[in-house]
């Protein structure tokens, strides 16, 4: 293991960890599995031990001690059974950027081939198809076929004010086609000049980056930025929080030489602007609604208020918070490729989330992420709950279609 691939700051953070255990209480993977060995605290202990074996005082005197296969396997398990939700960071007294550390750990492990085999399949699908599904990328805009009254080009065009970056899951998973379809209808209703990239849209690269394949990630980032730059768009709008996080923060951080010529917004922010500007009129929905903060939109991007403002702007809605909300929100279990690596763990995390939602007493749980919609809906079904799971775009579209002209 090449531990010197960690940054100086990260090596210092490994030493500075007090092992107080606050992260253990917050770890959603631990909550779902009750397996301490995959908790952040244990990961830190293992890393500290590995660093000391490689560079510690005894290594300096008696020579480096190779990290045992057993220890590497334990680290690999802990690293890849993490949802990357970054909840472990919330109460760290040292302020350790744990998510960055876990990402780097995956990168270091992957470089030596220490990663779950299933990720090879993901890598292959992405390098061949440019998306995470088994489908060809030419079918990127197939979800539009069910839409009525749309132009022949299906909104795939060269120039537009807004580019809607749909993301792989919304483009290829029929269970969540409602999300992009709702967004298109909302944009149409508000008179937004928008375009889709069609098969020129490639995966944002997040699945590669979060699997530790940083080298392969580069091609995707560069391609996507070049494509959007060529449209002359002023805004790039995404409905996937992970795509948003990539566009808004990671692309810029990693590739300082590429300058995006547009503003990146999550669709929740954009819809909120449309409502505030009076371009979208909302009709009543008489339901009790709660909101789940997607990790990449909330904790990792700091967007907490816009979705709440948007929900509260719908007439008739009674909004209630989940017990764990905003930066304390628990993960739905769909992040960090855990669904591919350990589907059972992902399911049990989703069930923990589902129980929290059931306890809230809401009729509808809304969120702003297609992956959260999938996992929460499955978790609620498994718990035998009839609570409906909706993306915020669907909720807004329902409200827009309920508008009769007299709602306030």
């Amino acid at each position, binding site marked *: 293991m090449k531990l010197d691939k960690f940054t*100086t700051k990260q*090596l*210092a*953070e490994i*030493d500075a960890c007090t092992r107080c255990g606050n992260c253990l209480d917050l770890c959603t993977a631990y909550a779902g599995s009750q397996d301490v060995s995959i908790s952040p605290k244990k990961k830190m202990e293992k890393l500290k031990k590995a*660093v000391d074996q490689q560079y510690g005082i005894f290594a300096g005197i008696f020579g480096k001690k190779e990290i045992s296969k057993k220890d590497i396997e334990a680290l690999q398990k802990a690293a890849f059974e993490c949802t990357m939700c970054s909840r472990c960071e919330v109460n760290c007294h*040292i302020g*350790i950027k744990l998510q960055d550390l876990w990402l780097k750990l995956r990168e270091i492990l992957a470089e030596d081939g220490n990663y779950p085999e299933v990720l090879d399949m993901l890598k292959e699908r992405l390098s061949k198809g440019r998306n995470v599904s088994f489908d060809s990328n030419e079918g990127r805009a197939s979800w539009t076929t069910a839409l009525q009254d749309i132009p022949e080009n299906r909104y795939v065009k060269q120039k537009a004010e807004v580019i809607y970056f749909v993301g792989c899951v919304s483009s290829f998973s029929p269970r969540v086609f409602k999300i992009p379809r709702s967004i298109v209808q909302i944009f149409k209703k508000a008179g937004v000049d928008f375009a889709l990239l069609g098969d020129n849209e490639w995966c944002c690269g997040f699945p590669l980056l979060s699997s530790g394949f940083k080298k392969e990630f580069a091609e995707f980032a560069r391609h996507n930025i070049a494509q959007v730059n060529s449209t002359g768009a002023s805004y790039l709008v995404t409905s996937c929080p992970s795509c948003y996080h990539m566009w808004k*923060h990671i692309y810029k*951080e990693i590739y300082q030489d590429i300058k995006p010529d547009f503003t990146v917004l999550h669709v929740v922010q954009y819809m909120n602007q449309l409502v505030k500007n009076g371009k979208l009129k909302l009709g009543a929905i008489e339901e009790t609604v709660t909101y789940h903060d997607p990790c990449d939109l909330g904790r990792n991007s700091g967007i907490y208020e816009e979705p709440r403002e948007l929900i509260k702007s719908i007439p008739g809605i009674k909004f209630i918070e989940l017990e764990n909300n905003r930066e304390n929100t628990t993960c739905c279990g769909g992040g960090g490729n855990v669904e591919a690596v350990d589907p059972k763990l992902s399911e049990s995390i989703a069930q923990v989330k589902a129980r929290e939602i059931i306890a809230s007493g809401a009729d509808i749980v809304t969120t702003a992420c297609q992956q959260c919609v999938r996992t929460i809906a499955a978790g609620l079904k498994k718990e035998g709950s009839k609570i409906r799971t909706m993306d915020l775009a669907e909720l807004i579209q329902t409200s827009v279609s309920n508008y009769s002209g007299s709602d306030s």
Partner: protein
Amino acid sequence: MAINAFIIWIILGIFVFLFLLGFFFRLSIWLRGEFTAAGFSGKPLESRIKKLFYYKVIFLKSFFSKNFLKIIAGIILDGIIHINLFKDSKLKWFIHIFMFWGFLVFSIITILHVIAVAIVPGWVRDGNSGFYVQVFASLENKFTAVVTDLSKIAIFFGAFLAVTRFLFLKRTYKSVEFKDKSAGVIISFIGVFGFLYEAAYFSVMNTPVNVKAFAPGGFILSYLFEITRIRWWMLANTYFPWIIVQILFYIYVISLLLFIAFIPYGKYSHMVFGPFVAFYNKWTGSRKH
């Protein structure tokens, strides 16, 4: 009766050398890592010295910036009062504050005492020495006695609370926390020898009750020495009692200094480096969204 000043200076020298070596050794491990810095454009730095210099400049620039007062407030709140821990759990805060402050004060006062004893190796009480020696060289100085004892009592109280809390923890948490209790055990061991040293000192010096009452731990133990006839046994020979005081002094001092010197090398390194990293993460423009 006099302690060997030369030996104490050698012990102190070795302690300072080992501590600094450990400190810089640990820094050199960090500097093996990849160089990244917000806003740095250019070829990433390779040399560890250059990296050290670069990070040092960032650190100092951040410290002496327009945020200086906020940083000082942050140091007081985070580093001294441990406000985050207080917000998180009152019980954990009590445990931590007793052990952290107890150990810090105990270490400082002990080092000051050791230096004073090295300056005047006879545990002076004649009043002809300088102020520093008058205060720190003798355990019969009321200030030194009170501070030394209170700090040790704080450590033991913190340890007691930690053990009590541990007994009521869930099983999974117990397995996680158990391994991290070694520091508490070592510090408590050092504290016990500190008390024994005090008690032996009071017994041998025949310290009046109104003086030794300022060091309640040592006082109670010295009283126990009297009723169990240990004191009589200690005083049976002219030189023997001072040998016992010296042995206890060396065990107490060497174990404490060794423990502190070991901190940068191993699993307790967070005690030294935690505050620096917390400061760096908070004030030097780490990624925030």
